[in-house]
């Protein structure tokens, strides 16, 4: 995701785009791209204004500093990376629900997962109670001002949190050796998927470390020549990025087959 090699960027962007499309549909993706494109252009245009490295001088800025081809290309690559990251997040947003995040943190830090879970309950409650207070104030025949609403809301939150704290101690909160319960199970296919992803990530990592797909933008753009090793890295990178797509596509296909059989 954070590698600026153009081939890898394209692989990553395509994977993210296809996955986002499978999850959110064509309209969300298009809307995202329409927002992304100007952002990419701005990022690409901004870079050469401040970065003057590069041997290929295209033109000069009014202050006499050069605009270089390398800086423009680097700006485009960074913009491409930004677009890729955002597209991945569009997809992740659809998959990563709050309780998955709570679970992930809970593995390492049970207290944090409880805190997150409590906040996820508390914040919407505050918002709802805020609305109730606004209605109550209007019912009293007054224009509710923000300060008053917040003041009432704070009192309400503080007073009622005593009852919540009571409920927590009543159910043994604060005893030693707390566990974190979750609904997720680690199945065989999870083992397989994880193994696959780790292997692919290792291949990519080793390849990058050995420099089989070295690239540089400054002072002149240079890429390592295509070799057997670099092709393996690209393929592995694709095999890593395509995992969510394959899982999702398989699900859709199985669903369709079963339904058409009925």
């Amino acid at each position, binding site marked *: 995701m954070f590698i600026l090699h153009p081939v890898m960027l394209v692989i990553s962007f395509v994977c993210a785009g296809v996955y986002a499309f499978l999850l959110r549909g064509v309209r969300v993706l298009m809307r995202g791209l329409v927002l992304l494109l100007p952002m990419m252009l701005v990022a690409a245009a901004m870079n050469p204004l401040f970065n003057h490295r590069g041997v290929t001088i295209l033109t000069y800025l009014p202050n006499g500093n050069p605009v270089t081809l390398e800086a423009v290309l680097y700006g485009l690559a960074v913009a491409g990376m930004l677009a890729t990251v955002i597209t991945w997040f569009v997809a992740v947003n659809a998959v990563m629900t709050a309780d998955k995040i709570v679970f992930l943190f809970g593995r390492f830090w049970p207290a944090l997962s409880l805190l997150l*879970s409590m906040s996820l*309950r508390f914040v919407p409650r505050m918002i709802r109670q805020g609305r109730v207070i606004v209605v109550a104030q209007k*019912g*009293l*025949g007054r224009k509710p001002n923000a300060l008053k609403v917040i003041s009432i809301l704070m009192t309400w939150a503080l007073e009622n949190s005593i009852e919540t704290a*009571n*409920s927590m101690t*009543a*159910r043994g909160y604060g005893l*030693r050796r707390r566990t974190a319960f979750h609904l997720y199970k680690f199945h065989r296919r999870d083992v397989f998927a994880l193994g696959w992803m780790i292997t692919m990530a290792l291949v990519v990592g080793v390849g990058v470390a050995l420099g089989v797909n070295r690239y540089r933008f400054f002072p002149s753009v240079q890429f390592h020549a295509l070799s057997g090793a670099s092709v393996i890295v690209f393929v592995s990178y694709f095999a890593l990025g395509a995992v969510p797509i394959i899982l999702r596509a398989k699900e859709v296909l199985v669903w369709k087959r079963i339904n058409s059989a009925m």
Partner: protein
Amino acid sequence: METYQLRDVTFTYPKRNHRALSNINLTIRQGDFVVLCGASGSGKTTLLRLLKPAVAPHGTLTGNILFERAPLDDMPLRDVASKIGFVAQSPDDQIVTDKVWHELAFGLESLGVPSTDIRLRVAEMANFFGIQSLFRRDVATLSGGQKQLLALASVCVMQPSVLILDEPTAQLDPIAAGDFITALSKMNRETGMTIVLTEHRLEEVLPLAAQVLVLDAGRIIASGSPREAVMGLREVESTFFCAMPTPAHIWAAVDSCGCECPLTLREGINWLAVQRISPQQSQAINSSAQIQSSKYSFALTLKDIWFKYEKNAPDVLKGVSFTARHSEITAILGGNGAGKSTLLSVATGLIKPQRGKVSATHAVRLLTQNPQALFLRNTVADDLREITSDANELARTIGLCELEAVLESHPYDLSGGEQQRAALAKILLTQPKILLLDEPTKGVDAHYKQSFIKILRRLASEGMTIVIVSHDIEFCAECADNCALLFDGDVVAQSNTRAFFAGNRFYTTAANRMARGILPAAITADDIIEALHEV
């Protein structure tokens, strides 16, 4: 085996002179269903909370509390958490996490139970209470009744030997309250779990109880089986009778023949059948049901109101027409989701209907369901002064709402009934001519309900137009001049209160159901008592 033994328990709150509890002696056996009742401030909540150290109030305690024959104080914290389950009044405040499954697991997580065991015990409990379908839901999407069931289930999952519940149904509508009591009784019957609860809605709980304790001013004034407790109460001539089930209430007021006290409606009907009722009285009540025309003009008229919250959402109000007259109390009844609160918001002008017309002769004020949404200051007195500084006006309103004793208290420290009256006082200071009340009896005990009725009647007689939205049938029957039934977004019936309830077969008061065969127009316990006294 005894779950609890209390010996000479006396309790005093810090900086108070009088005892909150004095010389309480009682024994609760394993598997008992114990109901603690009494007016607000009688000490029932204090007594209840002393049974669970984690929620016990601060103060001076003398005497002994034994849990399973060992002093409660010596119990290890882990046992206190797992063996004594506690369920509080507010469904919203006692739920800690955002997901149903997480809430169910919370107690077991605290005890350090491994995930695999939690999975099984949580599954068991969700099945027992029939809440499997809610398992992965967000707590925020549950109804009040579902939340309270969840609170119960997430305590029971720790497999306590005793459950302590502090007015668990006070915030629920009657249907949800019934469901909750049913679940509780199932727990008691099928697992032998000891249950101790305080309650002010006694109609349903009392017949289930093995032991009833009535508290007054920190003392037990009656105890024993429900029947023994009612008899005991009658002997000490307690005013607490208004909270008892309607049949017992009527029995206590009139029975002289030494019949056994009826507790359930069925017993009440049988008991009433052997009483003699004067024909004149029956006639008098019947004829009052015929009065139709009112001398007052309309104060608030809603005509053909259609409303939905979103463009593609279903209609909440479907062509509602509704009227309220000057100087009268009009009650709008109806179950959950009938659109009652929406109707009030439309009538107040807080939301604009898509179709239809609202006309009112004066500005309309609304007292919303949750009185806490109004309180701003640290004392009731300051809070009222925030509306007006006119001393005469303040004194008059404080007197009317009987708030003298609580003026210096924090609004959140008041009982449900007191909070409701403080909120009422606040809105009265804005000098409303048309006043709408949303569920004013939520969390209010029988005694305060009576005083609330008196206040509302007085306001109406002084010329105020009052509209109440409620699912409290008994309250509406005693309080309102007119009743309307809202169902599926429309008013399906509106008429004079007596005609309204006398005409209904199921959607009517306990008194009416009890006396239907003999006094078809009697709708309150007082109606029946009056008829019986005539003999």
